[in-house]
């Protein structure tokens, strides 16, 4: 059964140096507050897993949390590059970053396999692309029934999955709706999990189409109102597109970036997500 605990306590309990950590949320419900807490706690050598390394991974990479990145699209959606990610890959700043690169369909299926308790996923993908030559974690597989050649990707089972959702009750049952990405799969694939929520309520009112992650499938739940900013939480906030554009300028230069992080993330009480 999930325990509802403050974010700093949840993170100290769940994420340790060297862990593989998946912060998911497909444009919507990105767990910024949780990522900032990982940065504040100074975690190092993390394997960061995420389909779309968004600004939050740009920040974590730039602050030196990551040793390795498993991903399928690393950009600032609609704006351009992730400059800290690029600086790490091209110039090894602030540290070298190993990358393991996939397609969206590959990572999504790897999470499905992880959540399903299977060793690998099979998909019609990757063939003819340059991706298999650069990751051993993509292999051809022959269909035992038709003889067709397909692609196998090994299951993703992160040490920790972190997602953001709209609500939880006091027993840690979580309700999540809107664009649901791969959040459910990531939580169920992971060994430990944290769900940050906009609010903790007494009773979850039924909501058509919403996913409910039962408290017994989650390790910790933490209240983090506004914790998806500058992404958004449907029903609570809208996407701050201006911030995504502004990040291009903030992140382009190492010193501007470092100063911004010091002021908006590292300074106690000045967390950027508020």
């Amino acid at each position, binding site marked *: 059964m999930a325990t509802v605990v403050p974010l700093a306590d949840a993170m100290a309990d769940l994420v340790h140096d060297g862990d593989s950590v998946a912060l998911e949320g*497909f444009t*919507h419900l990105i767990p910024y507050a949780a990522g900032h807490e990982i940065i504040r706690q100074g975690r190092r050598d993390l394997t960061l897993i995420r389909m779309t390394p968004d600004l939050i991974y740009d920040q974590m990479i730039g602050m030196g949390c990551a040793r390795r990145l498993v991903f399928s699209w690393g950009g600032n959606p*609609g704006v351009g590059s992730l400059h800290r990610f*690029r600086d790490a890959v091209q110039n090894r700043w602030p540290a070298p970053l190993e990358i393991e690169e996939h*397609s969206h369909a590959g990572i999504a299926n790897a999470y499905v396999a992880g959540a399903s308790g299977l060793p690998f996923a099979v998909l019609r993908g990757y063939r003819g692309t340059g991706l298999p030559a650069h990751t051993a974690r993509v292999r051809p597989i022959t269909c035992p029934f038709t003889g067709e050649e397909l692609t196998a990707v090994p299951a993703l089972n992160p040490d920790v999955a972190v997602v953001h959702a709209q609500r939880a009750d006091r027993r840690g049952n979580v309700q999540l709706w809107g664009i*649901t990405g791969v959040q459910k799969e990531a939580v169920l694939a992971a060994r430990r999990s944290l769900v940050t929520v906009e609010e903790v309520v007494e009773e979850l009112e039924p909501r058509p189409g919403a996913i409910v992650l039962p408290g017994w499938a989650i390790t910790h739940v933490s209240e983090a109102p506004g914790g998806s900013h500058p992404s958004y939480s449907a029903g609570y906030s809208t996407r701050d597109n201006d911030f995504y554009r502004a990040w291009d300028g903030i992140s382009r230069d190492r010193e501007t970036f470092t100063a911004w992080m010091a002021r908006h993330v590292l300074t106690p009480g000045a967390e950027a997500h508020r």
Partner: protein
Amino acid sequence: MTAAYTADEMMTVAAARRLREGQSCFVGIGLPSTAANLARRTHAPGLVLVYESGTIGARPDLPPLSIGDGVLADTADAVVSVPEIFNYWLQPGRIDVGFLGAAQIDRFANINTTVIGPYADPEVRLPGAGGAPEIAASCREVTVIVRQSRRAFVDRVDFVTSVGFGSGPGDRERLGLRGGGPRTVITDLAILEPDPASSELVVTHLHPGVTLDQARAATGWDLATAAELRETAPPTPEELGVLRHLTGDSGRTRP
């Protein structure tokens, strides 16, 4: 009557015209999204926009900045998970048109959005694959929209992120790719299509005022033309009006 317009506007209008009423279209971010929304607001109101965030049949007022903006979910016929959008909708070949951008494209319409230069030590690290490899493999046909320059139009891409025609005729079949591949490449100068015999991209239309020499100068291989070379019809006042509304002072234009 035609009005003054920019090369980008000509490109976006030409791309929008490729989409037909009632088709389903898997839309990439940026220019493809603008063009698909233009088509939906002009000649193809029943165009079904599918975004990889899992929104099917979205009807945004303005092109979203990101493929996961709330307006897409709020206006969609259905919102599904990311595994579902790729496994149930894209992979079996249910989507008519894949609409993609590119950083590099080569003579066989292979697309690179991964790295410029060597993979291990790139000159430019680009965002990577996203949904594009499987969109290019599985949609019934693919339209690519990309500005034409020697930097982008190269003889061989540095990295094959998404397969066009591989190294030539028969490659898609050998790889087991089920969709028909790139049928049209639309640039700010011209429209290119694969030659039926060689699978190599050739110019079929030049946009008004553009010369073949200009298109060749912006291409990194010896660019050929189709037997019949035509001029693209210029944007109509209606097309321009709707496009400018979509990309206007809304705060949602592509930067």
